């Protein structure tokens, strides 16, 4: 694989220099491919001997396109680069460690990356995504090989012991879910990976699928071994064409090595895996709607019970896990539950992939143990706002997450602490807003988002979201503000208690948190959004 995917230019293979360029779609969206072309052209022109490897991204998106040159066994970073920089780079002798204004020094020493605790994302940006040799040489497959010789119950125990909780947002203990599936009596069981990553400001799932797909496949196989499921499906949103392509390539590579199929690693257990492309609806990220969609139906939320662990895909017991939950599993098996459990705080164990977005200087993925404060994430890792304006609100956990005011940034980032402050972790998305944000408009947006993405099955969500948005329009226009705020609050109660799934059930969070923390923005009340609509 490595021979095939590396590109050798020039005429002096002995003095060949290795350059790593990300092929992650976010890096490509800011020109990584153009940089690669420019380097190839420039190297050929200069008869420089260059070996170019396309890795995933390390997730320091604020530095993309970020290329790395291997010098004396160390990877030195340059970024963010433009095509115009390439000629300069060669002029400055970047292939041999020459200095350049875009030189970031050894990548491993960049504080944004150095200060993280990379467990799940440790290979992202480091290896070629579909290079099984590289995957294995960096610790890959160790978990699978261990699991292959453990009983299902032992695997489930290890996952339970690790304290791993569902990373999709609900935070349900993964081991307990697996135990339910293991205990279910059925001729066929399934593992379904939810990769319909739809929350605004989140991209961790995509990173795994594009940068280290074997990790996720390994996690899914282990889930199958643990529960008796022999067939896996991964539901990847259609907006991620590259993730779908990379993942299919990775599946083929593992099939070729006998790591998917029959009698995996001598375990006597079989597992096959199929990629299913999402059908373009936010609600398909809800697990039961995803199952409907996987079955070829329109994505509609199912009532529970029955829970998917007992009656999921095609009515069979099914593990439904988020990408990050499953991707955490191989290391738990490889390094032991204790190692994973040692990280984190309280009942939130292990690491969490925080994804910084919005008005943030250093946007990107931060994997670190639970318990870091929101302020540290935004100020230390994120470097504050990109605009330089003060932070006014931070939305944590996607479009249905609560808004946390600037005064609340010291909250610890773990499931319980966030819940105690009326917020939620969700999928780890963090979107920063500065002081120009109109929080009433944000609240209205939350209802509009719910109206737009509602599957339409239950009344509180289907009709409630529309009426909620309309009521917020009235409030913003100063119409019967007090009565309409009361109506909105009543509606929120109906949506919380009455909605069939978390979609309608969580819409109140951005709405109520905005009203609670920013009452001045709602309808002609004193001190209304002083900075709103300012540039």
């Amino acid at each position, binding site marked *: 694989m490595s021979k095939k995917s590396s590109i050798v230019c020039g005429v002096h293979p002995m003095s060949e220099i290795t350059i790593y360029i990300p092929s992650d779609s976010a890096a490509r969206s800011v020109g990584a491919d153009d940089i690669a072309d420019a380097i190839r052209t420039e190297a050929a022109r200069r008869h420089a001997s260059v070996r170019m490897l396309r890795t995933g991204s390390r997730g320091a998106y604020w530095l993309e396109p970020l290329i790395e040159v291997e010098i004396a066994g160390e990877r030195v970073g340059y970024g963010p680069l433009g095509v115009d920089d390439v000629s300069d780079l060669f002029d400055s002798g970047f292939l041999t460690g020459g200095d350049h204004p875009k030189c970031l020094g050894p990548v491993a020493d960049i504080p944004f990356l150095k200060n993280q605790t990379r467990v799940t994302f440790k290979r992202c940006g480091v290896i070629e995504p579909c290079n099984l040799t590289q995957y294995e040489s960096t610790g890959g497959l160790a978990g699978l090989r261990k699991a292959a010789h453990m009983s299902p119950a032992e695997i489930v125990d290890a996952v339970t012991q690790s304290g791993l909780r569902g990373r999709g947002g609900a935070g349900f203990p993964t081991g307990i879910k697996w135990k339910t599936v293991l205990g279910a009596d059925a001729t066929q069981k399934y593992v379904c990976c939810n990769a319909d990553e739809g929350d605004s400001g989140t991209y961790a799932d995509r990173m795994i699928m594009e940068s280290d797909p074997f990790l996720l496949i390994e996690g899914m196989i282990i889930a199958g071994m643990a529960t008796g499921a022999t067939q896996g499906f991964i539901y990847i949103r259609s907006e991620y064409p590259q993730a779908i392509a990379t993942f299919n390539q990775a599946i083929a590579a593992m099939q070729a090595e006998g790591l998917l199929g029959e009698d995996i690693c001598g375990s006597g257990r079989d597992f096959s895996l199929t990629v299913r492309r999402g059908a373009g*609806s936010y*609600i398909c990220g809800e697990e039961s709607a995803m199952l409907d969609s996987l079955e070829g139906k*329109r994505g509609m939320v199912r*009532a*529970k*019970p029955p829970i998917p662990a007992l009656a999921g895909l095609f009515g069979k017991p099914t593990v439904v896990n988020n990408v990050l939950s499953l991707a955490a599993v191989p290391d738990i098996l490889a390094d032991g539950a204790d190692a994973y459990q040692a990280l984190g705080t309280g009942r939130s164990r292990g690491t969490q992939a925080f994804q910084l977005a919005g008005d943030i200087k250093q946007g990107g993925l931060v994997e670190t143990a639970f318990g870091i404060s929101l302020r540290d994430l935004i100020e230390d890792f994120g470097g504050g706002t990109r605009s330089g304006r003060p932070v006014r609100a931070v939305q944590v956990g996607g479009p249905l997450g609560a808004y946390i005011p600037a005064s609340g940034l010291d909250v610890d980032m773990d499931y319980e602490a966030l819940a105690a402050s009326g917020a939620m972790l969700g999928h780890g998305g963090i979107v920063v807003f500065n002081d120009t944000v109109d929080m009433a408009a944000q609240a209205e947006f939350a209802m509009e988002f719910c*109206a*737009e*993405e*509602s*599957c*339409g*099955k*239950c*009344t*509180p*969500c*289907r*009709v*409630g*979201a*529309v*009426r909620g948005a*309309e*009521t917020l329009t009235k409030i913003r226009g100063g119409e019967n503000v007090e*009565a309409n705020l009361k*109506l909105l609050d*009543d*509606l929120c*109660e*109906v949506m919380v*208690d*009455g*909605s*069939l799934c978390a979609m309608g059930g969580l819409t109140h969070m951005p709405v109520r948190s905005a009203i609670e923390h920013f009452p001045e923005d709602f309808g002609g009340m004193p001190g209304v959004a002083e900075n709103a609509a300012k540039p």
Partner: protein
Amino acid sequence: MSIKKDHDLGTPSVETDKTVSVEIDGRHIDVPQGVSVMRAAALAGTDIPKLCATDSLDAFGSCRLCLVEIDGRKGTPASCTTPVEAGMSIATQTPRLERIRRGVMELYISDHPLDCLTCATNGDCELQDRAGEVGLREVRYGYEGEGHLDAEKDISNPYFDFDPAKCIVCSRCVRACEEIQGTHALTIQARGFDSKVSAGMDEDFLSSECVSCGACVQACPTATLTEKTIVEHGQPNREVLTTCAYCGVGCSFKAELQGDDVVRMTPHKDGGANEGHSCVKGRFAWGYATHTDRIVSPMIREKTSDPWREVSWDEAIGYAAARFKAIQAEHGVGAIGGITSSRCTNEEVYVVQKMVRAAFKNNNVDTCARVCHSPTGYGLKNTFGTSAGTQDFKSVAKADVIIVVGANPTDAHPVFASRMKRRLREGAKLIVIDPRRIDLVRSPHIEAAYHLPLRPGTNVAVINAMAHVVITEGLCDEAFVAERCEDKSFKRWRDFISEDENSPEALEDVTGVSASDLRGAARLFANAGNGAIYYGLGVTEHSQGSSMVMGLANLAMATGNIGREGVGVNPLRGQNNVQGSCDMGSFPHEYPGYRHVSDPVARSAFEDHWKVSLDPEPGLRIPNMFAAALDGSFKGLYVQGEDIAQSDPNTKHVASALADMDCIIVQDLFLNETADFAHVFFPGTSFLEKDGTFTNAERRINRVRPVKPAMQGMDEWETTCRLARAMGYEMGYRNAAAIMDEIASLTPTFAGVSFDKLDSGVSIQWPCNDANPVGTPIMHADGFVRGKGQFMLTQYVPTDEKTNRRYPLILTTGRILSQYNVGAQTRRTKNSIWHGEDVLEIHPHDADIRGISEGDLVSLGSRIGATTIRAVLSDRMPQGVVYTTFHHPESGANVVTTELSDWATNCPEYKVTAVQVTLANMPSDWQMERENRQAVVEPAE
């Protein structure tokens, strides 16, 4: 009785014998394990408010009105989707729940018209009722927001309107279409607030795949889907429980009335045959009963070329008796006879056969089963011992592999088809044996494991080959055969069927079915836990119809598929009371209860009761009557509710036989084709005026109750009795119940049947006697009626009807969904919108080589006759086979069919006629003659 709404328990029952104890609002109750909290509460007497839930559909959980609080559980779970657990403590009414319910209702009403007082379902609207219950007093959102109040009505369907402005998107219609009917014509289009019910791909109802079964209309909790009759007339004020008069499924209905006028037919939830479902015919196509074509006065005429003359009942009956007596005086007692109707009640049929035997003093009585299921009687009697299907309809829910042979249930027995499709969606496997690719072969969520498209006329070869595989591959259920069947007959049959000439490979060229498919199908069936066989006229209406019935019985016995739920050999009966008319002794050789007229014990029982001596010799079958008429020895015929001139084969032959008779009495609702040849017309009663019973294909004796007095002023059985009296035999009854009492006293299988018992709510499937006081849903459970099952040899013999260069195609005939039989009823309803004329289905290649395009008029000609009909190109036909229906008299399908018939019972071979199809530009000679005949004789004013 006045209108009584069924208690809707919200979610379906659960089959279990375990119960759990729960506490609902502080009251303890034991409920079946696994039922929903909603159903448990309803059983406890507390109806939790609901809109999307109804007990005919699986819980859905969308309306969110039915939330409850459960001790120890977070939040407010929906009671419809939450199963009870032992010890659960549930609160159905709390301030929190009150707030949520009112809030949900406020959302609903914010997008609903406020026209309750002028709404068609005012008084019968669940949304209205629930709004009342939750105490909604104001809609604070106002009504100026986004909404659906301007959505356009769809009035395309002839029977119901769709008004999306009133829709609450509960999906009950969509789910009814999926779960109950199984057509999947409806869907929710778009998502979120834009969600809307859509027929097909955003089509109107009429052009969609909707089959107008009405399940959606029934399921709708608002005025969104409403019968046009309700829109026009308003809500009913009384109801009568009765039975549909269409096919042999025998659906129970509530006739809902305003005074004596039907405004709606609602299938009855407790109806054993249909359990709350119906088809387009039963639910909607009842308008014929009061159609202006109805004849309500007796009429007579001297000659068929004379105009009809309306007369009094006395005159008509006296005239008829005189003519019949004259015939008997001149030509002997055997020169007259009667044909009973499978559309009439058991009581009406019974008196006709009694009149023939006692008043006409001969056994010349036959029935339309002669031309449909007489081979079923012969075949099942010889193998199992009784002439009836073995199962109840419900049994199909337990079948694992189903053979459908020579039947098209989605068109001809739609309500049963829905049950079957539900089971197929659950995973049962299907084998279809039919030349045509009927809908069951592949339709939404249904696909046959095997479709064996055999050549018409080769049924017996196919079933022999399947049995050959079962025996030679060691798949026979030897334990069953040893215990339940006659050893000698089995061994003889086993040796016969094992012969190489019966192998799939040997018969491949004959049947046109690949040997590997045939072997696969046979293995699938033989290895099924429960294998069930359902068949129709595609089995019986052949020169080897009886052999094929016995072949099916052999296969069922050899595979051990008799005597329990989920198995059996099941004829799908064509007409509403064809089972009953056979049971009631409508055969020239059998008394009621299938006892031979030569049996002295049976005969003397009837002689004693009827106080008359009876002829021990069998009388004439229908085809014999025609033959005897043509040779001058048969001169008078009483035809009760059957249109032999349209429905029997070789129309020209039938017509000349009828024309040769001296007196024909027709008793019918309408002047039918046979009436063209009649001298006396006795107006009959529609099912809405009848008091009696129909027996359906599962032997279920269903009550038919009058919703209004007879329009022509006399019960049909009374007409028959008066004719018998006028002929000199004293016969009369107080009421229909008295007739059933006599039937019960003379018929062992009916011994325990009475109107009182039926009216007490007991649903009875015969045999019903001291041993089985509430009837017998599954027959042959502890042993065959005849003792041990008898295997019969079924040598395949090709039909004499052969194709050649002149007649290279095979015509086979059948039915479609919207029309019924000769169409006398359905053609007088709006059903004709779907099928205004009979057409000839022909494979595109067969059409192409004849220069025929879609819609062309073609001449369909056989060795017997020709007719002109419109061609429809259809690749559901195999090459070499064409298909038509016989619902419209002017199409003349039976002008073409032959008189070849079943070797044992004379059931005509409707399904195989060698024909040629050529382009035509004018009606056939026969069609022109018919036109002229009808133009000359119009009823007198």
